[in-house]
């Protein structure tokens, strides 16, 4: 039992990430609005679709159209169900903007769900452009008396929805892969230094688990991308990087396979492992300059940092990374012990 403590920690952390990541509810959000366009001066009635909201139970339901500091409250509200709200706005004929089509955000607020925002929700067309006149008609209100949502919840993002939970099961795979491959580099270096065959076996086992995680990361990322971005594979930076990583390590296996002599194989594989890993690192700096990314944090997408990776998500995310890494190390350990045993058996024969 003594040498098993880290495996148990890995399992416990992974279980925690699984249970906490699945059971924690999402914050209320606004997936869609219909119709999403209207004309200035006409009354505008929209159906607001809510997610995890309690429109019908709320006593103080409020809705605004928002553009910068200008806000317009709804004149009439009618909740048909907990997730459906019909709001009517009496828009003035002039809008506080110089464009002919103005994009408003939609803000809802009640005492149960707290405030939710849907950015660029409604397009309003204006025929007369008079932003100076509009500035006097439109009320300015920075909306500071909003309700705060209490309790442990994950943030709601429009395209992602519940799939935001994939952060724990997809992204943690990548982190685990990087850590495992880095450990394999460590053993490669140690092999070259000391010449101990066991280090090479360890390095090989770690690379094979790293590749497993990489392939799984590709598969899961593909599924996720299909249902949020609409395609299985994009020419996205991080995807290309993965492809390069997989190519390198598949080449690593081919290289290993092409030698009969054990010592020669170990030495060359170690050298290639170090050289390839180091030469791929600059890609992290080069590629962002080549193309835009759909991934969080690039090309105007929200990043899983700052506001988007909030503290509630961290509670499950970091344990998921550590748990996944420990489980990977465990599998690699089994593989390593098997390789060592096979060596001994071959020696005896």
């Amino acid at each position, binding site marked *: 039992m003594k040498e098993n403590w880290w495996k148990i920690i890995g399992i416990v952390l992974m279980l925690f990430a699984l249970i906490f990541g699945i059971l924690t509810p*999402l914050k209320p959000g606004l997936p869609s609005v219909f119709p999403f366009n209207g004309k200035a001066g006409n009354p505008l009635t929209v159906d607001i679709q809510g997610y995890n909201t309690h429109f019908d139970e709320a006593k103080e339901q409020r809705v605004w159209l928002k553009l910068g500091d200008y806000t317009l409250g709804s004149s009439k509200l009618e909740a048909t169900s907990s997730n459906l709200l019909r709001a009517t706005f009496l828009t003035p004929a002039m809008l506080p903007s110089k464009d002919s089509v103005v994009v408003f955000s939609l803000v809802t607020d009640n005492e149960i769900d707290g405030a939710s925002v849907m950015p660029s929700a409604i397009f309003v067309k204006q025929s007369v452009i008079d932003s100076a006149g509009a500035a006097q008609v439109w009320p300015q209100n920075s909306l500071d008396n909003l309700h705060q949502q209490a309790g442990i919840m994950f943030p709601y993002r429009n395209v992602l929805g519940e*799939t935001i939970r994939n952060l724990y099961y997809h992204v943690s795979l990548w982190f685990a892969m990087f850590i495992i491959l880095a450990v394999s580099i460590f053993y490669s270096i140690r092999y070259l230094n000391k010449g101990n065959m066991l280090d090479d076996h360890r390095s090989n086992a770690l690379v094979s688990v790293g590749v497993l995680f990489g392939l*799984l990361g590709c*598969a899961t990322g593909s599924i996720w991308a299909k249902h949020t971005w609409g395609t299985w594979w994009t020419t996205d930076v991080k995807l290309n990087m993965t492809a390069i990583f997989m190519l390198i390590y598949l080449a690593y296996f081919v290289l290993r396979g092409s030698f009969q002599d054990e010592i020669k194989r170990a030495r060359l594989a170690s050298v290639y492992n170090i050289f390839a890993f180091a030469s791929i690192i600059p890609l992290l700096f080069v590629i962002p300059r080549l193309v835009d990314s759909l991934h969080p944090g690039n090309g105007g997408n929200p990043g899983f940092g700052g506001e988007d990776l909030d503290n509630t998500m961290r509670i499950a995310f970091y344990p998921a990374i550590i748990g996944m890494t420990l489980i990977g190390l465990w*599998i690699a350990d089994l593989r390593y012990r098997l390789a060592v045993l096979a060596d001994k058996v071959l020696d005896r024969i």
Partner: protein
Amino acid sequence: MKISKIIIALFVFQCIILNNITAQSSNPDFMQSIGKIYVVVAVIVTVFLGIIIYLFSLQKKIKQLEDQIKD
């Protein structure tokens, strides 16, 4: 050996089913329903199956070794 093949078949099968479910016109929104929660399910199942397949391949190697020892 046989079981690992079955698992691989299951894995492929699951991918095909996922694909079909999303493509089916009668129920196009299955993956999109309940805030796309089934995408999370699919991801977890994939990771689980992937690790299981790897473990089976490991078992195959152990079996080969055992056979060698017996001989």
